[in-house]
């Protein structure tokens, strides 16, 4: 645990020294806020309501780019410059390494999300904001980022090239997010079993439930299982490299 905390701290600090993290973070903070505030004030008649559901509606896509950008170099860069072998010789388990890197990215995104706290605070000044869905929205976004990061780390571990890692992350996560909708387009309503399968595995289903303010134990377990599975895969890939050399 102590080793993992040390890795996490070092990795988290490394984000603040990385230009990519700043560029991705700034884009993440600017783009959704710009679109959301622009539409929030479109209605000049005063009928606009104090809620953030539209803002959280932009989050899955924004988070997709942010998480992929943050994770693309985590292992790929290590492999490219040859420091992975050195890292694997340290007296820490691959699980500790993977979890440390994951938690660092997870907390970095948490800090970025905290920086958007001014939005609900502003809304609450001018209207009767229901904080429940706001809290749910933030929780859902953070958990979604965890799922994306877990997959992004795994994608980064299977390639030497950051760009390949980024593209794999973007494509697969985009597909997974819209899996249930895509399944409906492809299969129509002829295969309810398949549609149910894609609905269950899609992060979108679980995100929308939490983001509207309903925290279901099933949704929380989904994210836990999703993250654990891809972190396990990541660990397994590293272990394999360690063994094969």
């Amino acid at each position, binding site marked *: 645990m102590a080793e993992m905390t040390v890795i996490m701290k070092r990795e988290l600090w490394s984000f*603040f020294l990385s230009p990519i993290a700043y560029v991705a973070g700034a884009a993440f903070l600017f783009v959704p806020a710009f679109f959301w505030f622009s539409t929030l004030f479109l209605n000049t008649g005063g009928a606009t309501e104090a809620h953030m559901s539209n803002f959280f509606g932009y989050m899955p896509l924004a988070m997709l780019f942010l998480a992929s950008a943050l994770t693309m170099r985590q292992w790929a860069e290590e492999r490219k410059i040859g420091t992975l072998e050195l890292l694997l010789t*340290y007296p820490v388990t691959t699980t500790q390494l993977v979890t440390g890197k994951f938690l660092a990215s997870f907390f970095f995104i948490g800090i970025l999300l905290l920086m958007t706290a001014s939005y609900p605070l502003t809304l609450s000044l001018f209207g009767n904001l229901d904080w429940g869905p706001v809290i749910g929205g933030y929780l859902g976004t953070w958990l979604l980022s965890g799922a994306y990061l877990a997959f992004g780390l795994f994608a980064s571990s299977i390639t030497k090239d950051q760009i390949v890692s980024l593209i794999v992350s973007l494509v697969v996560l985009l597909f997974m997010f819209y899996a249930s909708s895509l399944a409906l387009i492809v299969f129509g309503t002829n295969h309810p079993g398949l549609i149910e399968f894609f609905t269950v595995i899609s992060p979108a289903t679980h995100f929308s439930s939490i983001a509207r303010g309903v925290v279901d134990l099933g949704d929380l377990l989904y994210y836990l299982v999703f993250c654990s*599975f891809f972190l396990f895969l990541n660990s397994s890939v590293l272990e394999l490299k360690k063994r094969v050399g």
Partner: protein
Amino acid sequence: MTTETNTQASSPASGALPSGPMGEMHGTSFFGLAFRVLLVAGICLNLLYLTRSLGVRVDLTQEKLYSLSPSTKRILARLEKPLVIESYFSKDLPGQLAQERGKIEDLLDEYVQMSKNLLKVVYLDPTSDRSIEDRARRLGVQPQPVQVSKSGMFTMQEVWQGLRIRYGGDRQKVIPLVPQSLSLEELLTPVIYELVLERKPKVGFIARPNTQPRQQFQQQAPPPAPGWEMVQGMIRGRYDVVPIDLSKGQQLPEDLEVLVLIEPKNMSDWEKYCIDQHIMRGGNVLLFADAADYGFNPYQPFQRQPFQVDLQGSKLAWKQQLQGYGVDWGQHVVAEMLTPELQGEADSFLFGPDGRPNNIERKPMPYWVKVLKKDWSTWASRLTKDPTAMAKLAKELTWGVDPSNPVFGQSQMLSFYWPTDVSLTKELPKGITGETFLRTSPKGVAQLPPQSSSPQSANVANSLQLRQLANSESSQVSLGVQVKGLFPSAFAGMKRPDRPGQDKTGQDKNGGLLVPQDADKPVADPSEASKADASKTETAEQGKETVKDGVQGDAEGPVFEGAPQPKEDKPEDKLPPKLDKAEKQARILVIGDANFIRDDHLSGRFPQWMSQPLMRGMVESLFSRQGRPLFDNLLDWMALDLDLIELRARRNVDRSLDFVGEVSPDEDQDLLKARVATKKWWIQWSNILLPVLALLGFGLLLLMKRMAEKRAFLSSAKATG
């Protein structure tokens, strides 16, 4: 960078394997690893399937939008027999509807969990079986056509989403379609409530339309005056509606839950006594009071009509009776004088030289009062500049419409027509509590009903009247109150009033009732009514000597010497014992207007005026849209004690953003718009840019610090050689 860890490197050369689960795997083969990955993937998928509907969840929304309300839980707790919900749901659904279906099924599952296993949900798919489809159609469940994409083609598909609710095996209700998850509870809970109650709550109506005398120049008889049939019709599905007429000596049914008393007029003591006894039995009263009637006659619009509350000869005034319950009825007509925006608008006719109307002008109508859901204490500074008076006003002024009351949850503004002032008495009777929930702005004026309430500017008298109104003493006039508790009887210590039709001469052959020849005729003129009443009083006086003692509290009613005793009265004719004290808690709710629920206002038609094209503008201006839902809510509040209103109100919390803030009445509109636009611009860009700048600023500071450290290191390295 990523390789930097401060853990001490162990001796990799020693060949020691890292400890932990991955270390243990070191010796396993590639296939073993692949097998483990597949195994974990399988476990994860199974876990996802098993945990997708655990039913353990927290609803974070303020109004608990996605959870069953306490009202539903209370109603489910009253289930005594098995309740089966047959869900006629088609399985194949397009995307959005599939998600909604999931939420509906979640909510139905919550109904099951809250019902202590008495509620079961059975899912039937009408698209899978022809017999199920036939049964659904027979029950009245109807499919909805929706457009779906199948194999790249858009086609129409029928979606079934109806419910059949069966209680105890013999009672059932059908909800043909549940359009969305949010409306499920609003639709389903009242149905369950109705089934659980076994019978609909009984609501009695006493409503007498006014009459209009024929004018001298009027050749035809005036059309019948509008009444209150529509409000009775619209609640018949949910309530057992009983029209009540006490004029022939009938009694109120003892199982009456609510008595709706609309614009009481020409009230006899017998009627007042029956109402009092209903309250003593724990029955609720919903009273729509009016101090005057205006505008029936097409030739004299907005003119006061003959109107008398108490029948002549009545010993107890209705106003006095209400006071005994804690309600003070001022019998004034209320005008709103703050701004024209708070007044209704009526068409005012401009007359030509020939004396005929030749043009129409819209004029504010001060007697049509708009009541706002607004805290008027914030207006104290605009009403006075004196700090002491301002502080006093801020303390006295309060909300126009009580925002905490779910009855008004949907409405930001309510309109009333020639309302009258009703308030709580200065000292409420012992054991009675009360609340005021409707008030005008601080510039409400209560005055004795004027003869004319016409807004016509051409009318000199009316202009004078408006000036008088503007100069009158104003205050926040109360228009709606509720009192509840164990009420004292208004007839305590008094003799039971004479029952209409009561025979004093021994001629009665109708079970103690005498139906007069002209009983069916309405009392057209109060003076005639008073004459009739006077003659009855006279008869009563004559027969007084023969009345035996012990009438008070006599279960069989008054007995007269010489009168033939009925062997077996009809149950409804038997007089129950007179109650001087309340047996149960009751509630009386008084609204100072009955016009807003009158048929012509609810339907937007003034039948008397429709034949005259010039009057049509006036017809539209009288249309009262809020009357129907407000009446629904008021009645549910009285009959169901808020249970079902909560379901409607909780989805209607006002969350609109207000960037305008307090506006001075004399502020220029263009300046106001510019002020709001500037405010929005600052809010938008400060929120967008500040977090970005904070992040980049932090990065820049960090970079500068590192550069300074680097320079310091380099210079120290140079210094040390």
